[in-house]
């Protein structure tokens, strides 16, 4: 029998330890988890139940609880099947890897593939009034921050390069996007051409090879 000592651990560490132990067990068997508070006792019980195991919890002392987890032959088999069928799915029931589950996005079949890329070639959106074009571009970039499914990268080139430098009205939105994991790149030749390289305020500088590569690998490209 495996013993998990989670005395003194605060939420959610006991659950994390239990999940790890279930992964180590990787078959039928018993695990006892010792915790010192009711929240941990209830949460460990739920974690074990959700993995298909049988669970019994008892209070040993004022601040001492023991959760006994029994993984039957069938439950172990079911978990294994589920895991195999999910392949590399993040957060697998018996996840040996409790670190960073689900943190890696990207497509296993095509490691260089990107999802959506936004290519911004001007600081204005659409033809017609320049003034309106500026307003539209600003609200376009704001709207991108509100997407449920964010793009992987935004590339700025030619007039678009003016949007990533000091004084751009979209900097706050771009910062927000960068914080949420969107990569922001600006064409270096363009920054040089307009003499604003020193003023770049967000993201990194890129070159034509990398722009071509990025656009080629994107599943979809949005051009405002």
């Amino acid at each position, binding site marked *: 029998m495996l013993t998990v000592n989670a005395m003194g651990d605060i939420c959610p560490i006991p659950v994390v330890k239990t999940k790890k132990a279930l992964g180590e067990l990787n078959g039928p068997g018993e695990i006892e988890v010792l915790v010192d508070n009711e*929240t941990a006792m209830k949460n460990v019980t739920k974690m074990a139940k959700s993995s298909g195991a049988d669970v019994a919890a008892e209070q040993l002392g004022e601040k001492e609880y023991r959760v006994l987890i029994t993984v039957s032959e069938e439950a172990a088999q079911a978990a294994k099947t589920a895991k195999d069928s999910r392949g590399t799915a993040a957060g697998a029931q018996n996840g040996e890897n409790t670190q960073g589950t689900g943190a890696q996005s990207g497509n296993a079949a095509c490691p260089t593939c990107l999802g959506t890329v936004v290519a911004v070639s001007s600081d204005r959106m659409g033809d017609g009034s320049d003034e309106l074009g500026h307003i539209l571009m600003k609200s376009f970039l704001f709207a991108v921050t509100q997407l*449920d499914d964010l793009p992987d990268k935004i590339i700025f080139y030619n007039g678009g390069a003016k949007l990533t430098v000091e004084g751009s009205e979209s900097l706050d939105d771009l910062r927000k996007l960068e*914080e949420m994991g969107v990569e922001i790149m600006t064409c270096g030749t363009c920054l040089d051409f307009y003499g604003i390289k020193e003023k770049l305020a967000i993201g990194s500088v890129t070159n034509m090879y990398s722009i071509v590569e990025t656009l080629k690998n994107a599943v979809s490209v949005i051009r405002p």
Partner: protein
Amino acid sequence: MEKIRLTQFAKHGGCAAKIGPDTLSKVLGRLPKFSDQDLIVGFETSDDAAVYRITDEIAAIQTLDFFTPVVDDPYTFGQVAATNALSDVYAMGGEPKIALNIVCFPENVDPDVLGEILRGGADKVREAGAVLVGGHSIQDDVPKYGLSVMGLVHPDRVYKNYGCRAGDVLILTKQLGSGIVNTAVKAQMASEAAEREAIRVMTSLNRKAKETAQKFTVHACTDVTGFGLLGHCSEIASASGAVIEIGAGDIAFMEGAKEYAEMGLIPGGAYRNQRHVQNLLDPGTLEEVYVDLLSDPQTSGGLLFAVPADEAERMLEALERADLGTKVSVVGKVKESGTDHPRICLREKVSIR
């Protein structure tokens, strides 16, 4: 600035760090009662802020809120804490005017981290249309941040957490689950999408929701925070002598919240909230996981409105049009009011007609 994981400083994060309602009511019960003919809302009804009449047209709302980090990124933490603090003013029907920073910060951590926290807070105060004018800071091992906010409201249009009537529909302006998702993030078991959604919800001001609601009749209002939906419903129920039916099947939850709850990634505050409401609660045959979800302590949650049934449909449409950036749901309805046996009944579905 070096990368920092702010949540590692805190045992409990956000509104989950709140002292339990049971403990609080015991302690507050022993304090002397203050009265003043111009005090419109005091703490007897556990409301969100104090409201004081200045003239017949103007009342001041005073509130403060701060907590330990719920997210790792300093700028985002500043935004969440400020959004949460400003929310108390919206929950009273007011408009925030002046904000002051409340800061606790360790001496040995890069001061730029504090700068980022304050920048996040300031950005939200600006978005709310209020002014930020200084504050107070002390050294402390665990970082804490929040605001004291003063707002204004017409004395006749103050939203209170009591006064709901039989037939009222309960509408909530944000999806639930931030306590559970934040716990999953701490356990490094949350998906990126879930984490992103939680951050978006926690940093959405309740401003538009309040402004939209002001075009309708609102019998009662509160913001859903540390006591969870059930805890805040129980405050409304107790304060109005109401029997409230909640239809769990129609409530919007954050992505992943149900799955994480089933895995036991539930903050201790949720169990405390359940204990607090157990005397009022009729759980019916609802699955346990829903009780956990409904009692999950929310950080910077949405506004909960009790509105007359004949206006509910139009208000839902107006909230939809207002483009809040969060999910609006019908939580349930008020079956009875003015009784001496307030109760909360959990159901799968509640018909609002």
